[in-house]
């Protein structure tokens, strides 16, 4: 498979009055053509900031402080804002969590879809009409001719999210970033949207970065997964692997804290609260909530241990050196 995106040792910080917030702290991952990657983490884990960086959307007081984002051979972090603008919509597109506020209420759906077609596809008039209908069909909107004449308030949440996907696809991008695209939707509608995203992969070989907090969605749709915590990637693995052999205590904790439909075992929560990114710990970001924490975890960030092909985890418990002489706290 062909490599499309390569994130290398990326660091993004926000310089606020209170100090430097290290939102993304030295992360690396890759995405191939036609692949769906699930980026999982809770609020403040840095998953959305990573996506914004790929789109070139990090703004003051935020800054990329290290590393690179290589998209199709070019380093996005080195491009000028003019060059990035050429990339957006044509090469990389993004859809957001809230489809209710992403559309302009005073313009018809058609004019908003065609605006994107004009900008990113360079077509107007009849050709744009035809393309708009084709896009709406691609996201399974029935009667596209009639729907294009309607206004956003005539569309439900799920339908608006489809329109957002159609707009994102106007410039035939190579990659779609979906930032919690179904969080605001009901489960039956969520299932419909996930099916559309899966179709995009099979029909037009789209690469998708799926940012979510829901491990169920990841299991459903992703080819591989990275789990983020406190600005770091704590575990990365092919999708099947992460559910079969989760190896980082945070991933395991996350899986144990979801109620399951097929059994009634008591939930094992992860104690404590998420870390304060203003004062990130020196060692492992998860150390203070981890029930298996060693002394070394507090002082040193664990290196990545390779568990199997494509599966690695940043935990001292998996490291030979710590296994030999690790003291429990």
């Amino acid at each position, binding site marked *: 498979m062909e490599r499309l995106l390569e994130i290398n040792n990326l660091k993004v910080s926000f310089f606020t009055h209170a100090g430097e917030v290290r939102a993304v702290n030295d992360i690396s991952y890759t995405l191939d053509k036609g692949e769906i990657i699930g980026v999982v983490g*809770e*609020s403040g884990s840095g998953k959305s900031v990573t996506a914004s960086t790929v789109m070139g959307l990090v703004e003051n007081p935020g800054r990329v402080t290290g590393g690179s984002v290589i998209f199709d051979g070019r380093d996005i972090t080195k491009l000028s804002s003019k060059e990035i603008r050429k990339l957006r919509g044509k090469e990389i597109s993004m859809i957001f969590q809230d489809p209710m506020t992403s559309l302009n209420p005073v313009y018809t759906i058609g004019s908003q879809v065609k605006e994107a077609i004009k900008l990113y596809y360079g077509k107007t008039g009849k050709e744009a009409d035809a393309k708009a209908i084709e896009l709406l069909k691609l996201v399974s909107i029935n009667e596209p001719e009639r729907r294009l004449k309607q206004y956003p308030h005539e569309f*439900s949440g*799920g*339908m608006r999210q489809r329109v957002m996907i159609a707009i994102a696809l106007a410039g035939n991008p190579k990659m779609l970033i979906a930032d919690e695209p179904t969080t605001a939707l*009901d*489960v*039956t*509608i*969520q*299932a*419909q949207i*996930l*099916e559309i995203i899966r179709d995009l992969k099979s029909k037009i070989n789209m690469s998708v970065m799926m940012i979510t*907090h*829901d*491990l*169920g*969605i*990841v*299991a*459903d*749709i992703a080819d591989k997964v990275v789990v983020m915590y406190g600005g770091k990637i704590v575990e990365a693995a092919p*999708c*099947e692997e992460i*559910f*079969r052999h989760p190896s980082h205590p945070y991933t395991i*904790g*996350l*899986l*144990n*804290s*979801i*109620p*399951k*439909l097929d059994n*009634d075992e*008591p*939930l*094992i*929560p*992860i*104690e404590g*609260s*998420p870390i304060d990114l203003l004062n990130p710990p020196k060692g492992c970001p998860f150390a203070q909530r981890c029930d298996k924490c060693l002394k070394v975890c507090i002082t040193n960030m664990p290196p990545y241990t390779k568990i199997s092909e494509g599966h690695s985890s940043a935990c001292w418990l998996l490291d030979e050196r710590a296994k030999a002489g690790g003291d429990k706290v």
Partner: protein
Amino acid sequence: MNEQLIKVENIKQHFHVHNTFSRGVVKAVDGVSFSIKKGETLGLVGESGCGKTTLGRTILRLIEPTSGKIFYEGNDITSGNITEYRKKMQIIFQDPYASLDPRMSVADIVGEPLDIHKLYRNKKERSEKIMALLRTVGLNSDHAQRYPHEFSGGQRQRIGIARAIAVQPSFIVCDEPVSALDVSIQAQIINMLEEMQHKMSLTYLFIAHDLSVVKHISDNVGVMYLGSMVELASSEELYRKPLHPYTQALISSIPVAKPKSEITTKRQVLKGEIPSPLNPPSGCKFRTRCPMAKEECAQSDPELREVSPGHLCACHFVKKSV
């Protein structure tokens, strides 16, 4: 422990809509009946707009019902002074960011119900009670003088829970108490709610759109669609043998955190969207999205009836099994 604490009969909540764009009646809750036994949890699930939150608030008479009856321990509380019953029935809200007054300290938020119902003799007793409540929900006395913005979502929800249990209620409506929280924090709150239920023998009406959370915490579960209850059964039974086509679709729509190769059931994706509550379909309200719908569904609204002991379902095609 088997007596009914809460019983509602044919409760209706209709809102009149009068504005530039539309006029008519939204039947947010349209004739729902159920009862909850002491110490048990009834879960309510359904998609947005199905009326589950309105139902919860109507039972507490935060909104006066259009018609129907509400009973607390057999006493009709549908009309008349509710103040006495406020001590027995409380609510935990969904959004811990919006449900706490940002200008009140935690001690005052938790203490307000004590003030309203005059549940202390002097200041010392008031602050002792507040500290005890904070400890119950896993906070400590250092937190008492702080303000809501200093807390994370999970901690705020704990404050909201402390406020709800301040008056020592026996019944709590939990309106989506964990849906605004991160997964790792959700489990903490769910476990705490379960623990409190055992210790204080609480009865819950647990409203959520997340079926797996509801299944976990509830004894019985009711499924709502456009203002009506379409299925009601014990939580075990409902997930093992869902009868209503809507319940079946709802359960199969949940993405499961498991490797694909271990998932045996086929996903059933519902077509279409929830119809407008201003203009619901005739007959069975689910028929526009139902894969089994036939002509008779448009003509008559199926009644919620018992199809096997303790399992109620409102569908023309579900046959009585006993």
